[in-house]
């Protein structure tokens, strides 16, 4: 965390007393928080939370929650960006007695936003779950947390304890610990885990109703839930349309990242986020995290940090992750390391993933580009979950990036060395 902690603390102290409710994490237009540690920022306990956001509207007084979620065009911030209103509507239609699950299994090593939200604004996240549970008539709220997220767990347990004496009328909240794995956060795997089955992706026919028949098990990402929480306090007109971004820099490529979590106002660019995070020397970025797309720093600087605007360009903000590469790390090298991590993360259930991902990584390590592209075509669309497709998107993008740089000696040598000079 050395890159960021000094700047973070300064920003925090400077802005603590600004006193509006315009943001999720804090109360100014931008903020830097070091992730993974509880020191350096502040945590809103129940009293502080109530002072900032006020009481939740009484149950049955949320207006039409689905309509207001649709009005702010909220999409799933776990990375899938599925329309939140569609999922909620399907959950309500499935009848009462279901479960609301807050997905805090932040399995991607480059992500830190969900743990930061839990550590600093736990009650905003829980408020979101409460209004969703009330709209559905759910019988419980489940927090699905990675077993190794100790600091986050402490904050969640404290928050649950803080709410009890406040006498808030809400369903029982229970904490479930997920295996420490990338696929533990995949929503069908979460549903399996909540049902008491082994935690692995399952076959889903309708993505709007991944729980199948019966009362819903509705899974929303932590940030998505915090946004519903904020919306329930502010209404659609005053809703804080910010973006919570993790800027990450590799410590061990594909495995361990130095992270800064920022909250930026709607009309921000990638250059703004990199500037706030203090990433001076990046030559390229991976936008959207491990399933994202590679861009040279000069191509990316002006890109908007807004999912809808990025989607118009065929890009995605994913789970709000920007990996910034220093000069010492090559895009192809980082892409290979990430693919290696993803191959290792396979739940081992589907043939095209079990056999395809290791083959893909082997070809990447040998830098055989045409072999990689052939394998990508074979594997694409044939996993039980979306993990292989995300890996393939990221790898193809790394190759496309290299080709845009085809004048660079490195990329030229790489392709020539294997007689694959089809630029």
């Amino acid at each position, binding site marked *: 965390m050395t890159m960021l902690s000094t700047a973070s603390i300064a920003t925090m102290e400077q802005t603590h007393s600004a006193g509006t409710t315009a943001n999720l994490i804090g109360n100014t237009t931008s903020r830097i928080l070091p992730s993974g540690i509880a020191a350096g920022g502040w945590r809103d306990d129940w009293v502080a939370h109530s002072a900032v956001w006020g009481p939740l509207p009484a149950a049955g007084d949320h207006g039409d929650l689905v309509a207001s979620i649709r009005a702010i065009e909220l999409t799933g911030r776990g990375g899938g960006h599925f329309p939140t209103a569609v999922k909620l509507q399907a959950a309500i239609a499935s009848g009462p007695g279901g479960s609301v699950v807050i997905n805090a299994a932040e399995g991607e090593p480059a992500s830190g936003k969900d743990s930061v939200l839990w550590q600093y604004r736990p009650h905003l996240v829980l408020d979101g779950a409460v209004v969703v549970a009330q709209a559905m008539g759910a019988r419980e709220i489940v927090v699905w947390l990675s077993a190794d997220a100790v600091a986050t767990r402490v904050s969640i347990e404290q928050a649950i304890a803080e709410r009890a004496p406040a006498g808030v009328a809400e369903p029982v909240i229970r904490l479930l610990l997920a295996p420490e794995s990338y696929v533990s956060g995949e929503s069908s795997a979460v549903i399996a885990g909540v049902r008491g089955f082994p935690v692995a992706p399952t076959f889903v026919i309708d993505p709007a109703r991944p729980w199948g028949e019966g009362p819903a098990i509705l899974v929303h990402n932590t940030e998505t839930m915090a946004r519903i929480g904020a919306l329930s306090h502010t209404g659609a007109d005053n809703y804080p349309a910010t973006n919570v971004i993790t800027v990450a820099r590799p410590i061990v490529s594909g495995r361990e990242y130095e992270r800064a979590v920022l909250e930026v106002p709607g009309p921000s660019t990638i250059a703004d986020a990199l500037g706030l995070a203090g990433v001076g020397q990046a030559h390229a970025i991976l936008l959207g995290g491990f399933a994202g797309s590679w861009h040279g720093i000069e191509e990316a600087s002006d890109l908007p940090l807004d999912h809808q605007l990025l989607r118009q360009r065929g890009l995605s903000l994913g789970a709000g992750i920007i990996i910034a590469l220093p000069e010492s790390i090559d895009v192809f090298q980082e892409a290979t390391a990430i693919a290696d991590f993803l191959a290792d993360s396979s739940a081992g259930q589907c043939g*095209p*993933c079990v056999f395809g991902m290791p083959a893909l990584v082997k070809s990447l390590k040998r830098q055989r580009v045409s072999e990689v592209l052939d394998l990508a075509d074979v594997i694409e669309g044939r996993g039980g979950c979306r993990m292989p497709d995300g890996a393939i998107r990221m790898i193809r993008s790394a190759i496309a990036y290299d080709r845009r740089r085809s004048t660079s000696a490195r990329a030229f040598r790489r392709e020539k060395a294997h007689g694959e000079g089809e630029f």
Partner: protein
Amino acid sequence: MVGYRVVIDRIACDGAGVCAHLAPSVISLDRWGFPVVGEVTEVEQARRAVKGCPRRAVHLFEIAPGSVSCAQSSSSP
């Protein structure tokens, strides 16, 4: 005109390869022996694959205009 779509439950599938034998115009096998699904040109073949799969991993869906509904599936867990 009703269209059909074959969907493989990749998690149930263990690559026995029976489907490709029963529905050669619809399903082929990749280099590891797992099904690759093409256009459903022969519905009867696809139905045979649904019935014949030892893992009940082959599903046949009817594509109605504007919606996708389950026309016939090998299992309902």
